[in-house]
């Protein structure tokens, strides 16, 4: 079947975007992507957008139609896909399939979330909690930081992962995000500051957690038949894998791993005909610091239990053995949940084009995105190459 490439990228600044509403945020990212591609709305044949909960964050559903309308994609089939925080990654996968199958040549993929309009932290916490089992986890008092705190405790208990190792992930991602003009937090932090910040869900503190963010990201993908009409530097999607798991964290026997990430990455590696050692850098789903440590183990970069030490030893720094989240990750760049999966693609494409400026990893050939929904009930992994 035909190869599929990312030919254009666009992304808004992430953060508390008080001056812009959902449709503006999306449209700004879409315009940037079309300008980057050199295409117009007339070239776009279909549109997929990932959003976790526009209905609860801003009271707007049917956002495929809304965003297509305001982007000027007249009569284009517009579909919203949802897989909690993995919504953006799944949107890309849907476009990838549609092009591979020969149905379309040029598709717009978007991710969007406008989270800051909810008035209280408790309402944001409750809305994000809806990605867990509402009746049997959230009702009992589980929050999202709580779910990853349970994972962190289990990881610390079994492998001796330390509080400082968790903090080192946040420190590294802030260091990277400082160099990302679109990141929500562009300042460095220290291990001591992470440990001293207020507790959200023991052992996780505020600086272990990704923030509440607004933002949009867009990738324009095209078939190999037309890709070079739009760009001299297509970035090929060489592998796509998705896997699921139980909705409730408690239904999994081992809390120190997210099996969906293992299955999704195995499928993506197999499709791309590579292994973990061939990956030059990765953008992984660090919604909480422990999530990045578990991700680097599930993806096969480090053996189980050694992700914490690897982070602390600097192996995941921009100039390390396997750079992880050179963009700043969700922690520093921001985490508008539905946008994150597509924002990861934007970061990978910048790297593979050699346009990542101060964040640039040394001559990467292969990049990977790892996008998680909920506490690991959905995972989607993509592999990209020049």
């Amino acid at each position: 079947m035909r190869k599929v490439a990312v030919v254009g990228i666009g992304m808004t600044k992430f953060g508390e975007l008080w001056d812009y509403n959902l449709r503006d945020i999306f449209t700004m990212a879409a315009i940037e992507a079309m300008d980057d591609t050199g295409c117009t709305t007339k070239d776009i044949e279909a549109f997929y957008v990932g959003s976790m909960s526009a209905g609860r964050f801003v009271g707007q559903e049917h956002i495929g139609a809304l965003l297509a309308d305001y982007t000027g994609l007249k009569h284009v089939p517009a579909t919203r896909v949802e897989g909690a925080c993995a919504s953006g990654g799944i949107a890309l996968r849907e476009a990838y399939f549609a092009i591979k199958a020969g149905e379309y040549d040029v598709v717009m993929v978007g991710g969007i979330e406008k989270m800051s309009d909810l008035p209280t932290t408790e309402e944001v916490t409750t809305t994000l909690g809806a990605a867990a089992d509402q009746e049997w986890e959230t009702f009992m008092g589980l929050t999202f930081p709580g779910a990853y705190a349970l994972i962190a405790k289990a990881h610390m208990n079994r492998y001796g992962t330390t509080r400082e190792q968790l903090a080192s992930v946040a420190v590294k991602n802030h260091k990277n995000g400082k160099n990302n003009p679109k990141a929500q937090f562009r300042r460095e932090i220290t291990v001591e500051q992470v440990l001293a910040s207020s507790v959200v869900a023991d052992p996780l503190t505020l600086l272990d957690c990704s923030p509440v963010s607004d933002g949009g990201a867009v990738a324009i993908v095209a078939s190999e038949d037309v890709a070079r009409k739009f760009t001299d530097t297509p970035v090929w999607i060489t592998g796509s894998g998705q896997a699921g798991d139980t909705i409730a964290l408690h239904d999994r026997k081992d809390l120190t791993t997210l099996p969906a990430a293992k299955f999704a990455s195995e499928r993506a590696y197999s499709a791309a005909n590579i292994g973990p050692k061939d990956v030059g850098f990765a953008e992984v789903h660090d919604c909480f610091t422990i999530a990045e440590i578990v991700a680097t183990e599930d993806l096969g970069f480090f053996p189980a239990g050694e992700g914490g030490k690897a982070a602390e030893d600097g192996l995941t720094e921009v100039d390390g053995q396997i750079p992880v989240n050179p963009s700043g990750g969700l922690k520093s760049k921001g985490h508008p949940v539905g946008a994150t999966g597509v924002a990861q693609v934007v970061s990978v494409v910048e790297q593979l084009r050699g346009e990542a400026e101060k964040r640039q990893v040394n001559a990467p050939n292969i990049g990977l995105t790892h996008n998680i929904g909920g506490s690991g009930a959905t995972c989607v992994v993509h592999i990209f190459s020049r």
Partner: protein
Amino acid sequence: MGHLESVPLFWRRMKALYTLTGVECSNCGEKYFPPRLICPECSGKEMKDFKFKGKGKVVSYSIIEVPPQGLEYQTPYGLAIVELDEGPRVTGQVVGCTLEEIKAGMRVEATLRKIIAINKAGVIQYGFKFRPEGYPVFNTEVT
């Protein structure tokens, strides 16, 4: 959020929430809590009620400082994944001890408690929480 105040949403779960009644697969014997209609292990579709004793051990836990809506006045609270002696795991709050006393591996037993007290519909939603096993319910010695 409106869904937290829906009476039927809560009412239809009362049996499971109050009595820890789940199901057992008639075909392969696997037990589940909460109830489900098809067995993920063997695809069996005959599930019969199974009442769990409510005793088990803490697998992992956290102290929640930033709560969801409805639990603002209970923070901080202990929250754990508990493995019931019959096999299934459930999520629940740990009460009846100090937060410092909660440990992985500790034995606990289910107890009927108020889960959410603040609710515009006026319904107090009860359910199970966990307390240390052998928690003294009544002190019969009058001094």
